[in-house]
C-alpha cells in the first residue's frame, strides 16, 4: 500500500470512529424516554372557543417569527424546548411575557430575550397567543 492510500484509510477509519462515537453519545443521552409533561390545568382557565382562522393566523406567525428554531410542536422544530401543552401550563400573560422576552422571562432567557423583543408590536401577536393558548 502506498503512503497516500495508507493515509486515506487512516483518515476514513478515524472519521468512522468519530461518527460512531457521536452516535454513541446520542444513544446514551436517549437511554431514558423523553419525560412527559403533566398538564398543569390548575394554572389556566378552560380554553376559549377556538376560531380556526385565528389559529391558522397564529400558526403562520409562529412560522414567520422562526419560533421553531428553539421550540417544537408535535415533533416539528427544535425539541430542546417543546411547546406541546404550553396552553395548559401558562396563562395568557405568562405566554405573552415568554413570547416577547419581558419581565421574569427576560431574565431566564438571557441573550435570547433580545431576539424575542423584536416581535413587540407585531400585528399578529394576539393570534400567536391564541394559537399557543389552545395547545393543550
Amino acid at each position, binding site marked *: 500500500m502506498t*503512503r497516500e492510500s495508507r493515509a486515506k484509510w*487512516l483518515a*476514513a477509519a478515524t472519521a468512522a470512529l*468519530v461518527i460512531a462515537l457521536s452516535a454513541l*453519545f446520542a444513544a446514551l*443521552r436517549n*437511554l431514558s424516554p*423523553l419525560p412527559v409533561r403533566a398538564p398543569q390545568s390548575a394554572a389556566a382557565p378552560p380554553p376559549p372557543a377556538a376560531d380556526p382562522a385565528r389559529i391558522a393566523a397564529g400558526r403562520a406567525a409562529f412560522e414567520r417569527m422562526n419560533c421553531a428554531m428553539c421550540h417544537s410542536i408535535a415533533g416539528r422544530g427544535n*425539541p*430542546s424546548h417543546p411547546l406541546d401543552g404550553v396552553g395548559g401550563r401558562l396563562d395568557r400573560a405568562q405566554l405573552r411575557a415568554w413570547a416577547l422576552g419581558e419581565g421574569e422571562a427576560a431574565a431566564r432567557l438571557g441573550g435570547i430575550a433580545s431576539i424575542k423583543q423584536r416581535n413587540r408590536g407585531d400585528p399578529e401577536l394576539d393570534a400567536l397567543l391564541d394559537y399557543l393558548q389552545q395547545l393543550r
Partner: protein
Amino acid sequence: MSPPAPHPGNSPHTTRDAVLWLGVYLAAVTVPLFALLPGPAAGRGFVWDFAMALGYAGLAMFGVQFALTARFKRATAPFGIDIVYYFHRYLAVAALAVVVAGHYGILRATNPAALGSADPTSAPAYMTAGRVALVLLALVVVSSLARRALRIDYDGWRIAHAALATTAFGAALSHLLGAGRFLDTAWKQALWAAYGAFWVLLIAYVRVLRPLRVARRPWKVTDVRAERGAVWTLALEPAHATEWLRFAPGQFAWLTLRASPFAMREHPFSIASSAERPRRIEFSIKELGDFTSTIKDTKPGETAWIDAPYGTFGIDEHPHAEGYAFVAGGVGIAPIMSMLRTLADRGDRRPLVLFYGNRVWDRVAFREELDALAQRLNLEVVHVLLEPPADWTGERGFVTEDVLMRHLPITRHRFEYFLCGPVSMTKSVERALAALGVQAARVHSEIFDWV
C-alpha cells in the same frame, strides 16, 4: 564536526506511538463531547442529538486540522510528516461531510423548521455564523483539493488557506457557543470556550511563535551551482558561527528565500548534503515551478531561513539493514545523495545499489559524483535511461522488475529500500519489489507533491 543526529529508529515504539497518537486524536475530538453528557438535560431524541453531536465533533475535527499541520515533531515522527499532511487532507473531506451531510443535512432533512430563516437580517447572528462557516469550510476544502486544477499559485493559496480556515473556525465556534443548547451550565460553556481558545492559541503558535524561532536562526547562501538537468544546488551556512543543523540523511526542510519567515512563503525541499557536515547544508532543486525557477538567481550572501529537520524517510530509521537499495527518478536523487554522502563520510562498507532513472544521459544530475562515490562505497550505480545514446550498453526504459532482478544481490530480502521520484515510478517499483518477495515494511517512499 558534530556527531550524527540521534534519531528515533524503527523500533516497536513507532507502531505503539502511532496508535497512541491516533488515540490522542480521537480523545481530542470526542472527550469534549462526552463531557457534555452528565447534567440535568434529557435527550431530545436520537436523531436530533446525533445531528448535534456531529456538529460538536465536526468542529473539533476542524480544530485538530490546525494541530496536524503545526509540525509537532513528536506527533508526526511515528507516521512521517507526508502521511500527516495527507491525513490532514482526507480528514478535511471527512470533517466537511460530518458537518454538511451530518450536522446540517440531518437537520435539513428531518426538521427543517428548526433551522429557521436563512435571511441574515432576521436570523440570529449565531445561525448566520453557522451558515457562513459551512460555506467557508467548503471553500477551503475545494480550493485545496483543486488547487492545481484551478491554477491557484502556491504562496497565495497558503495565505488564503490559513486566513479562510481561521475565519471559518471562528465562525463555527461562535455558532456553537450561541446555539449550544447542550451548554446549559456555566462549566460546560467554560469548557468549550477554553477548548476554542486552545485552537486560537495553537494558530498563534504556528503563525507567530514558530516563525519567530526560525527568524532567530538565519542562514547565509554561500554557493549556487548548476548541476546537470536544470538542477541548482544551493549551499547554506549558519549566519552565526556557533549554529548547525542536526538532521538525519533523507530528511527535508522548509526553506524561505527573499521573504520574511512570517510571510508564509516557505517551500519544502529534501536536504541533499551529508548529515555528517551539519554546518553546511545543501539543497538540490530542479526548475519546475514559480519558486524553483528563481533558485538560480539567488546570490551568495543572501539570507535564508530554514525550519528543519522533518521527515522519517532515511537510512537512520533502519540502521541495522544488511544493505540498502535506492531507486531515484530525476531530481528524486536529492535525499538519496544525502544518504550516499553520509554513508561515505561514515566509511560504511555495507553493499549498496542505486537505480537511477533519467530521460537522457547528458541531464543525469550528479553522475560524476556518483562515479566517485562508487569508488569510496561498496556501491553499484545502475543508470536506467529512457532515451539512451546509440552506444549505450546499460539499462534502458523504466526501473522494472527485470532491471531490479538483474542487479539486486541474493540477500535482497534483508535490504531496506528507499524510493524517491514521480508517483508513477514509486508505485510501479513498489509492485515490482513485492513481486520479488521484498516485504512491504522494507520499502520506503518519499512523496514529493503532498502540498
